[in-house]
């Protein structure tokens, strides 16, 4: 019986990959008993939570907790940073520490500000006196909190600014004639890679320079957040590039840049494909128009899914130890987790490259000069 339950749990754990679009209700079903004090996070949480969580170890919940955003940033043991909550309601802005949204057992508590706030499944909601969600008032609630992801994003911005500005300063100091040194020589190949392998082949040498700052910024922002996400402890540990809001924002920027820089012939090829019969043109227009939106959407989902899947995979392997309820499982779980970690390093670079590459390709397609060569175009679309 125990073996069966372990087996079914394994299946459920690995099915988490396909759970990206699954329902919360389904996730809630994955309850399985586990011994007290089990789980990476669980060790910390169960002790702190005391009676309530004791005896419970929910793999899905543990994994999702690591992947989701949070109002506090766990440092070590029982220490964590309580990040500020910034709310915009019908009564204006309100700022308070997220510490006030949890009680001494780390359970959601009601904070009485302009309204009564409570965390419901990780999201701040307005509740009434009985603790029930006030749906109408919550619709007016905008949560601009500095969450773990936002804080991690700021850390990555800070690192990028320090690293790249000092690299730029090195160019000013040593001049053009001398060979790059130190940090400068580490950044230059990456910048050259983006220029020579991403921008120029897709956009063309003439126009590439104009889009280089945009592509480089996107590339480095994704890269640093992918890497920070792989570090399991502070200042990493957040899952910024595996968050749909992050990838969506970048995809929207790509969408704006592509469509703003698009030339006349690009729009012509979307709405009235040249060299086709008029009926075909009518047929192609809606398809091409959908393509305008699916391109950035694919960017958004690709990065989100890849990074999230990697995190889930590593966490699942670590969770195997707690599923098997024996420390010997780590003999398999840890090497595998290290192996997947190595692959994740590659994926971190690869996904940053692919995002930038496709962004450059979309820009290239939008700015390409067409020479009324209908056959050549067919290959592009």
């Amino acid at each position, binding site marked *: 019986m125990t073996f069966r339950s372990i087996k079914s749990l394994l299946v459920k754990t690995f099915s988490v990959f396909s*759970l*990206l*679009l*699954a*329902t*919360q*209700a*389904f*996730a809630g079903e994955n309850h399985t008993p586990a011994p007290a004090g089990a789980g990476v996070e669980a060790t910390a949480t169960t002790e702190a939570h005391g009676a309530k969580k004791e005896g419970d170890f929910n793999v899905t919940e543990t994994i*999702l907790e690591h*992947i*989701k*955003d949070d109002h506090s940033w766990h440092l070590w043991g029982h220490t964590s940073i309580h990040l500020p909550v*910034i709310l915009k309601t019908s009564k204006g802005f309100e700022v308070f520490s997220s510490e006030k949204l949890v009680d001494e057992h780390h359970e959601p508590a009601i904070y009485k500000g302009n309204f009564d706030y409570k965390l419901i*499944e*990780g*999201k701040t909601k307005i509740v009434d006196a009985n603790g029930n969600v006030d749906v109408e008032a919550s619709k007016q609630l*905008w*949560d*601009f*909190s*500095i*969450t773990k*992801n*936002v804080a991690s*994003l*700021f850390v990555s*911005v800070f690192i*990028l*600014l320090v690293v*790249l*500005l000092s*690299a*730029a300063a090195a*160019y*000013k100091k040593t001049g*053009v*004639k001398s060979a790059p040194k130190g940090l400068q020589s580490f*950044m*230059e190949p990456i*910048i*050259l890679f983006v*220029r020579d392998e991403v921008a120029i082949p897709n956009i063309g040498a003439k126009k590439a320079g104009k889009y*280089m*700052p*945009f592509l*480089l*910024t996107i590339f*480095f*922002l994704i890269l640093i957040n992918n890497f920070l996400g792989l570090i399991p402890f502070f200042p990493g540990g957040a899952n910024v590039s595996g*968050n*749909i*809001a*992050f990838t*969506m*924002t*970048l995809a929207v*920027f790509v969408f704006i840049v592509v469509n703003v820089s698009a030339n006349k012939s690009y729009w012509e090829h979307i709405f009235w494909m040249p060299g086709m019969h008029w009926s075909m043109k009518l047929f192609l227009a809606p398809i091409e128009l959908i393509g305008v939106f699916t391109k950035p959407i694919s960017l958004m989902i690709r990065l*989100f899914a890849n990074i*999230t899947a990697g995190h889930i995979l590593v966490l699942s392997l670590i969770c195997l130890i707690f599923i098997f309820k024996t420390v010997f499982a780590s003999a398999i779980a840890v090497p595998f987790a290290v192996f997947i970690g190595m692959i994740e390093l590659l994926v971190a670079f690869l996904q940053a490259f692919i995002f930038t590459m496709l962004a450059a390709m979309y820009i290239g397609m939008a700015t390409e000069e067409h020479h009324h060569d209908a056959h050549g175009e067919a290959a592009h679309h």
Partner: protein
Amino acid sequence: MLLEINPLVLPDIGLVFWNTVAFLLLLVVLGKFAWKPILKAINDREQGIEDALAKADKMKAELATMQSENEALLAKAREERATLIKEAKETADKMVAEAKEKAKAQYDSIVADAQVAINQQKNAALTDVKNQVGALVIEVAEKVLHKELSNKAAQETYINELAEGVKLN
């Protein structure tokens, strides 16, 4: 309930907002203070390398031209030297030949002169000898004839006849 969206794929407005702020900040700050100087420096360096290579190629070509010019010059110099040597040799030969000819002519003339002088001296000597012999003969003959010829005049006439008759050569 199954159609309810997983919160993982529901973007939080907070992160969207802060990410927009962060990205725009990065784009502006890095664009102005990092990407622009770095890309410019890289371009400048590449341009510099390209220029240097082009210059090196040009120098090489120039060097090759100069070398071929040098060789041509050298060949010309060699030719000139050969001509000069040839001419000098010819002149020397000519001078030697002339000197030889002149020497020969001088020798010839000296020999001729000497012969003439010898002949003259020989003739003079012969004449002298002839005269002395004549005188001796006369003396002898006088002495002889003195005994035989009492008439001195007749005797001299006779001796002169005899002397004329003697062919010296």
